[in-house]
């Protein structure tokens, strides 16, 4: 339970960065931290006390393993997180080229 709450606190740090910061790179970093917290939460849900990693071996019983399904889903989620970060960073680079700043309050006027 404490671990769940700590993971939630990590999520809230990322949420604070997204909501409060005015620098685009800080917002992207906040998104990344939220993504870390979500992935960690899924893996925390899948953990079993004295469990073993879900790889078959000779001398083991099936019910002693941790849950492999959230691990497979998080594996997908990590790669998609990389794609999202790359896309958002490229948009931020483009905005910097156009406006010369990362400050989101300065980026409000249209320039052709």
């Amino acid at each position, binding site marked *: 339970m404490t671990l769940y709450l700590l993971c939630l606190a990590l999520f809230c*740090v990322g949420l604070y960065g997204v909501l409060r910061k005015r620098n685009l790179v800080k917002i992207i970093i906040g998104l990344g931290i939220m993504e870390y917290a979500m992935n960690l939460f899924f*893996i925390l849900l899948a953990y079993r006390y004295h469990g073993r990693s879900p790889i078959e071996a000779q001398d083991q019983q099936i019910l002693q393993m941790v*849950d492999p399904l959230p691990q497979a889903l998080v594996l997908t989620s990590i790669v998609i997180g990389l794609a999202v970060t790359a896309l958002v960073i490229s948009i931020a680079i483009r905005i910097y080229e156009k406006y010369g700043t990362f400050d989101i309050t300065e980026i409000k006027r249209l320039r052709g």
Partner: protein
Amino acid sequence: MELHLLLLFMIVGALIAVEAKDLLSSVVAVGAVGFALCLAFLILKAPDLAITQLVVEILCLIILIRATLRKDLPLVIKGRWFFNTLGTLAFIAVFLFFAHTALQELPGFGHPIMAVVKRYLQQGTAQTGAVNLVAAVILDFRAYDTLGEATVLFASVIGIMAVLRRPGRIK
């Protein structure tokens, strides 16, 4: 116990990343958080995830450093600083309240439900021939999921090329 320490380290690193003055040190701090996450995956018995997280973290750091190199900007604090912070903290408090209510319904740490995955565990090796059950799930039982992931990756690559290309100007 070591998991608690690792999570506290991650929270401190995330706070430094969000609050640091210059962007490069904040990027380095978020890299530290990512590598701590990799260690946490190892402790939680998920070696495939630890490997993937390591590679993805290195790529993410390279991309982020490319974006922030020689573009340091001082953080401006002006305007309605007090009300903005207060509103953000109030939103986070409401979020924490509802999340804490929802957490009571979950099974305790260390006792997963394993309702769906029981069949995969019993028949996985016989049906797919894969020794690693995570590989069996992503490549056989839920292969459409992986197909969608590849689609998202390629869509993102197309998006990056469209955003970053320099169009030629027609005179």
